[in-house]
């Protein structure tokens, strides 16, 4: 027992010598300062957003919480900085969305919010991605089964056509063929590069 007591005493003194209160505070301070500096570093937001979106897709979970910063009628003058932000109506993939962005409703640009059901039928748009200068074919699925999300209304209509060309029309409720046709929000899923 005596040897066990000596061992614990030795370990405690060693720990106390190596981890003084002052050194602990100093280390916490270093970490906090570093964390504060991170947002100032020049990082590529678009890749971060893509990774974030991809991670959300892989987990099939919600994207980071959105904000109600959109005004559906302020989309006519696109803001370049917003073209890579999935929480913005100006995000490049949303070029023919007319509805609520699932990114602001618990989902992401390609994930339906929890408890909703994707529509199996969609309308299709072609959107230009300024980051790689390519045109992409985008499927605008609706997420269904709950009443309208009511956040981040987005009304863009590039190359959108009236309902006699249904596959290019965003006025139809694309939840129409779901068992529960209640519309909640809209996602934008890349189908491929438009040749």
């Amino acid at each position, binding site marked *: 027992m005596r040897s066990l007591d000596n061992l614990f005493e030795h370990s405690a003194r060693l720990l106390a010598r190596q981890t003084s209160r002052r050194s602990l505070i100093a280390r916490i301070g270093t970490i906090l300062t570093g964390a504060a500096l991170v947002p100032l570093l020049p990082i590529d937001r678009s890749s971060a957003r893509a990774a974030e979106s991809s991670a959300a897709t892989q987990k099939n979970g919600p994207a980071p919480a959105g904000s109600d910063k959109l005004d559906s009628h302020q989309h006519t003058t696109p803001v370049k900085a917003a073209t890579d932000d999935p929480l913005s109506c100006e995000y490049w993939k949303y070029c023919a969305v007319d509805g609520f962005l699932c990114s602001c409703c618990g989902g992401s640009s390609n994930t339906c919010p929890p408890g909703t059901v994707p529509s199996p039928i969609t309308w299709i748009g072609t959107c230009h991605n300024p980051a790689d200068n390519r045109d992409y074919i985008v499927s605008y699925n609706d997420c269904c089964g709950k*009443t*309208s999300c009511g956040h981040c209304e987005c*009304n863009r*209509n590039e190359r959108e056509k009236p*309902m006699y060309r249904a596959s290019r029309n965003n006025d*139809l*409720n694309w939840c129409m063929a779901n*068992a529960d*046709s209640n519309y909640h929000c809209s996602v934008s899923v890349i189908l491929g590069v438009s040749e």
Partner: protein
Amino acid sequence: MNIALQTHLLRSALAYLALCTAVIAATPPLPAEHLTVAEIGVTKPHWAYVYDEAFNNETDARVHVFDGDTFRRLGQIDAGYTPGINLSPDGKTTVVATTYFSRGSRGTRTDLVEFTDNNTLAVTHEIVLPAKRAQTLPSYFNVAYSADSHFLYVAYITPAASFGVLDPRRKTVLNEIDTAGCVLVIPSGPNRVSSLCESGRLLTVTLNPQGKEASRASSDPFFNADTDPVFVQGVPTAKGYAFLSFLGEVHEVDLSGLQPVFRPTWSLVSAAERGTWRPGGVQVAAIHRTQDRLFVPMHQGGEGSHKEGGTEIWVFDLKTHARLERWPLQAYKLAPVIAIQVSQDPAPVLFAATTAAELAVFDARTAQLKHVEQHLGQTPWFIFNH
């Protein structure tokens, strides 16, 4: 102040108080009240039936009935989920083709048409539909009566396109007619229904007295869906409808005969304005049918701006096609206009619903702004009248 004066003032105050108490006691009490339900009476030319999608909570759409003379809300017609709305030819009934879910926002879907008596705003009866009703933006053509009110037509999209033929008197669905991809129900005469096709044609189905298809015919193309599509929100004219294109072409269709007759196309814009000034919104124009006036909310924008509200209202003579006036809406401090309607009487009022949910009431002849009703509902997107 001496004691005598104080005593005098106190006596005066007491006397005044006693007098007031006596007067109040002599006033008879208010009579007991009886709770009643208002009836709004016979419809008037300046009433507007304002479709409110309630887009932020879409299962709760409604129609606001608004008086353009007294500027008062007269009442409300509930309208369910993404409804189609219309008035009967005699103006006495509002029809609401809508969808309900058995558990409020979820559950079994029931599509139906509800009939509301416009003198009481009470629902009088309903007809249950197949669960195929077109759930889309409002127009005159989501649900529509035949000219003699014998039939009621309801547009179906599943997304296969067809329409239902209903007998509103017997309260039954008579038939469903496939339209081969052409959409909506544009009524003419007692038994004809036309639909808009992607090919730019009108498909016209003629019905027999039992509401079954007797014949069908396709018109020549009158627009090009690739280069300059027309808005589906056609506007009633004296003999048919006018369809505006995204670039501002006016396609007038005479549906008074057995087959559609297309009048020569004309333009809202000059060559210099083409592609920069455009019609837009949801209800893109209004026509006074006896005064031959066309009112169009116009905005400046490019491709893809066809749902933007107008920053000006342009007024045209339908006979000469001359632009008579431009009403800049900024001067009235109004948000962009996305729906417009004009009454059909000799002293017409013009209603304009804005993106800020305002309902503006103008004298249609002088452009005088008579009233702005703030926050008329949540998302007023279409205005019906009789």
